[in-house]
């Protein structure tokens, strides 16, 4: 293995971040559709909304397994510290994802209980999104580490900040869902979603703004990262990029574009994610563990990297192919189920 331990750990931190980001944007719009489910005006609209993601949701959710499994593989200490710290939100998220996941199949298998699984789809998606936001907030505000283990209590994650990030992710995912539906549908439902997208976009940006303003004051390192020269010259790129996306988002909606609002909304997530990355680096579990402290030995990193280098491009290729197969506006008469 030509690469040293430091480089390997750095590459892996990037890969895990990439997996989490891909998860957030892909499952983000799936979950968003669940969050918007009660807004549908008819059963056929609900069928349509679900069918826009039915062929791809399973692949999308697999990125979550890669995020969790990958963390276990290459940063076992981070995994071992974070999971007990986020015990309740993670468990609740998993339970919610169970309801959300089975609804895709169950609601087509029954008439009497179809509404039950509609509610399960909405509730599961919303709670899963909220828990992911709470988990993010809890990680950002910092996790107590004692020795090689989590050192806090089982309710440390619950703070006003983590509740705020929970709401932010719910609203943000709903935005992704609404813009995805603008992309995939036509007619009344598209107009309806375009209307929602405006408000959800404004709400998402407001919440991103509030979270961004609070974050630098949570952990001193974050503050230095953002407000000390010369580094802050670089970090200024983040808000500038965000402003460009905001313009692109609202002008896309105004001009009746189909794809532009969706891509811009994805951009909000990507830029926010980069922002979190700037705050964290080189920590993986703030404020205590750096990526090098948490990383597995070089032999584990190298072995896993060979698989990732070969397989991640292949995965991206056939994921893109699956999206390509089911591309374009969804035909209401062509339900997949």
């Amino acid at each position, binding site marked *: 293995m030509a690469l040293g331990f430091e480089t390997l750990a750095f590459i892996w931190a990037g890969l895990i971040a990439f997996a989490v980001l891909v998860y957030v944007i892909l499952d983000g719009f799936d979950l968003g559709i669940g969050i918007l489910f009660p807004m549908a005006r008819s059963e056929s609209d609900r069928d349509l909304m679900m069918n826009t993601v039915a062929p791809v949701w399973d692949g999308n959710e697999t990125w979550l397994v*890669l995020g*969790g499994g990958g963390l276990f593989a290459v940063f076992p200490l981070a995994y*071992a510290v974070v999971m007990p710290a986020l015990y309740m939100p993670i468990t609740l998220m998993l339970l919610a994802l*169970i309801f959300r996941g089975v609804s895709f199949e169950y609601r087509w298998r029954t008439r009497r209980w179809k509404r039950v699984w509609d509610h399960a789809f909405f509730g599961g998606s919303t709670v899963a999104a909220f828990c992911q936001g709470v988990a993010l907030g809890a990680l950002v505000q910092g996790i107590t580490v004692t020795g090689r*283990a*989590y050192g806090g209590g*089982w309710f440390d994650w619950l703070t006003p900040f983590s509740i705020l990030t929970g709401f932010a992710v719910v609203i943000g995912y709903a935005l992704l869902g609404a813009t995805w539906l603008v992309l995939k549908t036509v007619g009344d439902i598209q107009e309806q979603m375009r209307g929602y997208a405006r408000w959800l976009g404004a709400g998402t940006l407001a919440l991103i703004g509030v979270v961004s303003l609070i974050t630098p004051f949570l952990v001193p390192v974050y503050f230095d990262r953002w407000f000390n020269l010369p580094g802050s010259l670089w970090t200024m790129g983040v808000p500038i990029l965000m402003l460009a996306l905001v313009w692109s988002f609202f002008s896309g909606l105004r001009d009746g574009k189909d794809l532009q609002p969706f891509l811009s909304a994805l951009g909000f997530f990507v830029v926010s994610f980069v922002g979190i990355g700037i705050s964290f680096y080189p920590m993986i579990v703030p404020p205590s563990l750096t990526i090098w402290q948490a990383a597995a030995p070089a032999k584990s990193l190298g072995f896993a990297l060979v698989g990732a280098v070969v397989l991640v491009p292949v995965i991206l290729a056939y994921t893109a192919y699956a999206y390509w197969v089911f591309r374009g506006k969804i035909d209401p008469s062509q*339900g997949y189920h």
Partner: protein
Amino acid sequence: MLEGFSAETLARFQFAFVVSFHILFPAFSIGLASYLAVLNALWLKKRDETYLRLFNYWKKIFAVVFGMGVVSGIVMSYQFGTNWSVFSDRAGPVIGPLMAYEVLSAFFLEAGFLGIMLFGREKVGEKLHMFATAMVAVGTLGSAFWILAVNSWMQTPQGYAIAENGQFVPEDWMAIIFNPSFPYRLVHMVLAAYLTTAFVVAAVHALHLLRDRTDGDSRRAFSMAMWMAVLVTPVQIFVGDEHGINTLQYQPVKVAAMEGYFDREGDNQPLALFGIPNAETGRLDYAVEVPYLGSLILTRSLNGQIQGLNEFPRAEWPPLVIVFFSFRIMVAIGFAMLGLGLWAAWARWKGRLYDQPWLLRAALVMGPSGFIAVLAGWITTEVGRQPYTIYGLMRTAESLAPVEAPAVATSLLAFIVVYFFVFGAGTFYVLRLMNARPGAPRPDLHDGPVRGAVIGPVTQHTSKAGH
């Protein structure tokens, strides 16, 4: 209601609960994915609509079962961290990358091609659809490969070193993956999944044949399943026996517990057909034994000697009664499967495979047998390797996360309630799908135009194939 239990007991119970539920789905979907690939290939090759109808019939059942498997599997990938984080930290460098390979090589393959397999026949054409179907099957097998490599390494660890910080670190990846018990465990599990599916398929179509013995689709499927039963069960019994010999070499305490051996019986080790292991007195109560058979099976000679439990410290004993009985349940089901396979072969030879009601009824009753055998087998091997998570090196008690008992109790109760509700409903839907005859539409369900839409392009393809 769970006060008084330690976090460790609750975490053990939680893991046992979620993993036992989970294993039922792969046990079925590994076999069913391969069966679907075979049905689709036969349809493309022979252009006999029977295969297409069977494919579409089992495809729907697969979709529901696979969905349940995915969501229960995601829970598993987080259990290690939430409840067993000390284990995760120490074993992560060795088993983590294997799990990452499972996700990268298998999960994505299944999930990426599942949509095309379920919904994409018209969109991508027959050839690519066949490819997608095959990839789903390959994915399920790949998943079994990696997860059994992990489990087997924990049973027969090798190729590692122990670092200063207490972590197990890899020395030789080939030795880690191809550890001594892995080949046996992998083959045993994959065959178990195939048999589980074969007996479910047999039971469903036996039901339809009992209602209407002229049902051509059910005849075909029942026949295929009974070929599997008679051909694969003997292989499985042979593999299981070899696996047992391997276990005797690496985990003799487990075998002693499985067989209820407390003392070395000189040169005549009997085989206990029944008994109740009594850890207090160190004897097998109410034993019904066949002399010499234990020696013969485990050492391949009439006079071979086998170590008894009393030769090991009690702190190394697994829970005896569970291991003893779960092993016997698994073996008994294996022989019942063989019996049904032979009965069907005889009926087939007589030309009466489809019109012996008692054979069909027996097949119906045996429908869930594979699930019970798989569970019993896993309980044997997992309870049998206690008190260790990594055999001989790390105890289960040392593996626990720093979690508080109320947290584990709350999540345990939540898992129990949700699993019984969600998977109970799913099982009900699967049974209802199975209760419908292949090719019979259910007019009361809005089922989408899949079936209608598939027939259209398919007839076109048939005419093309005729050119």
